[in-house]
């Protein structure tokens, strides 16, 4: 009897791409039976897998504490949270970049080379702080949980650090990217104890998925 592997998948943006990778690898993620189906855990009895769909930011937590063995999380979230996990696979989905942006008007007269102290609104306080402090720039951080683009419009901060996929949201809100902090993509993450105690199962899943990326 094979041991069960529990897999935590993020809700939202990359859910479709994730399902595609798994199905290409020959693994079925069971679907909701109807729109009233409120279950959070779905079993694939054939492969002895258990799937749960959770908030993207929560996936690394589930994995680090071993509530799930394997998960998928964005490299942005992983670096921001700094958790103790394995990241064996870049799934190359959910691609975007984390950038510094400011109002188009400000950009005209602004020179990032002269920044010494700036106020930044972001969902990523740790990455932002480290990025700027490595350059010797002090930051006053305003942590927001969403609609970051509003901050410069309403004068909450001059600049923001946020994810950019196409740049359309930024453009529509009168913002322009000034610097790219990092490229982002989704990673397969594995709990340390799971890899050590179920090495064969973990390795075979990683191999199956790596073949279809």
């Amino acid at each position: 009897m094979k041991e069960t592997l529990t897999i935590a998948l993020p809700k939202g943006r990359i859910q479709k791409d994730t399902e595609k990778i798994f199905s290409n690898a020959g693994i079925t993620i069971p679907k909701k039976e109807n729109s009233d189906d409120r279950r959070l855990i779905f079993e694939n009895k054939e492969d002895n897998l258990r799937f749960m769909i959770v908030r993207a930011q929560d996936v690394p937590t589930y994995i680090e504490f071993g509530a799930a063995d394997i998960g998928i999380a964005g490299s942005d979230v992983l670096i921001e949270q700094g958790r103790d996990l394995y990241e064996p696979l870049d799934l190359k989905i959910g691609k975007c970049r984390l950038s510094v942006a400011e109002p188009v008007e400000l950009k005209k007269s602004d020179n990032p080379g002269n920044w010494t102290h700036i106020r930044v609104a972001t969902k990523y306080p740790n990455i932002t702080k480290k990025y700027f402090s490595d350059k010797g720039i002090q930051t006053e951080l305003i942590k927001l949980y969403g609609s970051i683009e509003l901050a410069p419009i309403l004068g909450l901060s001059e600049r923001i650090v946020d994810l950019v996929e196409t740049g359309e949201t930024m453009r529509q809100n009168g913002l322009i990217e000034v610097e790219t902090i990092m490229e982002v993509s989704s990673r397969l993450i594995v709990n340390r104890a799971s890899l050590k105690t179920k090495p064969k199962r973990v390795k075979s899943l990683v191999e199956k998925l790596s073949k279809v990326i």
Partner: protein
Amino acid sequence: MKNLPTTSLPAGVKDTLPEEAEQIASACASVTEVFKSSGFERVSTPLIEYLDVLSPGLDQNLDNTAIKFIEYSTGKVMAIRPDVTPQIARLVSTRLKDKPLPIKLFYIENVMRMNRGSEDKTVCETIQAGTELITKEAGPETDAEIIITAIEALKKTGIKDFKVDLADIGFIRSIFARIEASTESKKDIEKFIALKDTNGLSRAIDKAGGVTEDDKELLLSITTLYGEVEVIEAAEKLKGTKNALGNLKKVVEILTEKGYGEAITIDLGEVRGFDYYTGIIFEGFAEGYGKALLGGGRYDGLLTKYGMEAKSTGFAIDVENVVELLQTRK
């Protein structure tokens, strides 16, 4: 809300009520029994020390997590111990330096660390039950002895389905010694090995330069060389592993001969404590429990730092993790 004097605790510390206190005491009694019957003697060390004294014997990561403060009368920096091992090294190199080797000591002590992690940096107090084996010469026999003590101790607490995962820092160090790249590039390579991120590792190696094609292939393979003891044989088929796995192989051989083969797994890509350990490292894991139950390894440079020529190896069991696991297995 009534206006009472506040009774809250700082984050990261806790009380223990009778039932759990009893479970912790019982786990401590079990490991004590094993440590004693394996010839280890108990010692006790103080909760605080001068940071200067602790630092040489601490893994850099632990040094950063120590809670520090100033001694009022002297202005010196003190720390609450984040680890007991440097204290044992100090004790052995001063008070016990004339005692004939081997010296075998154990302790059950509380340690305090600032929690790693992002949003809420809090202190974290844990109970560690550990042993230190100090010998004149290092060798696979002493490595095996300390690992067997660890396995027996965990067994005695009542945990059945655990594995002790072995690696040899010496193996990866031997590859690193051949790489001609900056310290920073090597750190980068180490980071991606730690994550088992083959893509990232490949990029880091190319960026670093100074890595031969054979060594690149070897390093990339290391990220998947984990599992049963067969991975050692798989590794030996790769170029550049000659002799570098001899010690680990011998340790596994001794453990298997003595009937502990089922209790061990291998992960050649484990680089935890890369700058601290010098040889075999190991960690205990149980299926379905996300945290390590114990951790340890060989740190041959440790006593030298305290002015004594001797080799040492040891481990510490996280007693509360063990108790938490036992509670879930009831």
